């Protein structure tokens, strides 16, 4: 089927998703559940990845910029800039597309093949709104928190790696991460994160919602959700960077 068919159907699904909900109280309960499942339960993996990501960035920066002309604090500066501008918002979003996106597509896809979505439709429930809207809101609320935590942990990981290996002193690293700080860069990172969260939730939900077949197809939808979310995130990343930084 043509790409335009899928784009059209994606936007029609979004329209249905954002149409008025039946009972707001039930949506609130589902939102809290989704925030726990999609947000809090991702904290462990985000924390682990961030610490190691920061450590690697610091070591690589030092080994690639080992010139007597460069001041020692530049390592901390580069680690902070690459973490805030790119690694935390983009890499963590790509990781979340894998974890959260596959979860969303598999859950909704399973509901589709087990006829649970048909059951909702027959009851007169707006199935798209009931299932997808809380996931979108949960991702858009929780992902920025995850990314902020990731920024801190990544920079902290860089500090540990720096002083642990002796490639940079603690004082130089701390001086570097405080040098030339532009608060707008954090805003830019958070705007990107919110947009990526929307992409992860909606692209994955689309793949799950239109699953046709059985358990094998749920797996296919889950894989597609991750692949397409990643592709759309990378395209959006370029577009947002051009829009917001130039």
């Amino acid at each position, binding site marked *: 089927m043509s790409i335009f068919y899928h784009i059209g159907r994606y936007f029609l699904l979004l329209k249905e998703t954002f149409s008025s909900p039946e009972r707001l109280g039930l949506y609130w309960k589902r939102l809290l559940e989704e925030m726990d499942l999609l947000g809090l339960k991702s904290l462990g993996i985000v924390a682990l990845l961030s610490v190691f990501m920061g450590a690697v960035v610091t070591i690589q920066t030092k080994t690639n910029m080992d010139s007597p002309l460069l001041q020692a604090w530049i390592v901390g500066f580069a680690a902070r800039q690459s973490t805030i501008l790119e690694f935390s918002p983009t890499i963590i979003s790509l990781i979340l597309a894998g974890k959260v996106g596959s979860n969303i597509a598999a859950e909704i896809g399973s509901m589709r093949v*087990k006829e649970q979505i048909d059951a909702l439709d027959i009851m007169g429930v707006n199935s798209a709104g009931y299932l997808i809207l809380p996931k979108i809101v949960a991702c858009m609320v929780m992902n920025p928190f995850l990314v902020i935590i990731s920024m801190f942990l990544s920079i902290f990981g860089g500090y540990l790696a720096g002083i642990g290996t002796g490639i940079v002193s603690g004082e130089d690293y701390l001086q570097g991460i405080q040098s030339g700080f532009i608060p707008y860069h954090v805003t830019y990172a958070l705007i990107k994160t919110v947009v990526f969260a929307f992409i992860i939730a909606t692209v994955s939900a689309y793949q799950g919602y239109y699953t046709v077949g059985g358990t094998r197809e749920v797996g296919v939808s889950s894989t597609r959700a991750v692949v397409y979310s990643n592709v759309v995130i990378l395209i959006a990343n370029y577009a947002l960077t051009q829009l917001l930084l130039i």
Partner: protein
Amino acid sequence: MIEVKGLSKRFGEVQVLTDINATFNKGQVNQIIGKSGSGKSVLAKCIVGLHRPEEGQVLYEGKSFHEMEPDEKREIRQRIGMLFQGSALFDSLTVLENVMFPLRMFATMAKSEMEDRAHTCLKRVNILEKDDLFPAELSGGMQKRVGIARAIAMNPQYLFCDEPNSGLDPQTSILIDELIKEITAEFNTTTIVITHDMNSVMETGEHIVFIHEGHMWWEGTRAELLNSDNKELNEFIFASALMRQVKAAMGNKG
């Protein structure tokens, strides 16, 4: 009453249903029978509005479903109860929460009243003591009974059952059939059962529609079914050894 007029449905190049005309009466167990792949489930999905037919109409009390405004459709759907082939219970909700689900979505009553109503429905299908279990902890027959309890929670006017006996042992199958028959009489629903189980047809079928290769091949009562001279229908109903014995016994009597 539900009427189907000139309904045709195709998926891409595949014509699944062609010019189906049928009337499903109120207070009766109407059965759509046919071989696997004959189009009976697609017909049911067209009737409940999950599929939009290319041609024809589905009339609920004389009003065309597919021409209704979205609000009217939603209203009709709230009067439909459906038992799915795989029960379609929500995995993350307990039995009680599953039955309460349509009430929580649409009914304007206190939570305690909803619980009472859900308990009444569960008692009606003899599964009250399992109300705190999750669907995965229930047997197939129990899941069907919970599915029926959920379907009747909103006092439906229309009850649809898609292959209610599939995957069940004969004894449980009979219990489910009896339950459907009793609920139809009790709630005065227009009940449509999709099945290929001849035991179920002989047990509960009052008005029977036979679908063959996407066409409506035969329509009649249970008594007329056994005396029909329709070749395809006879091939279908007398495929089972049990039905051949019934036929032989009738022949001996006659």
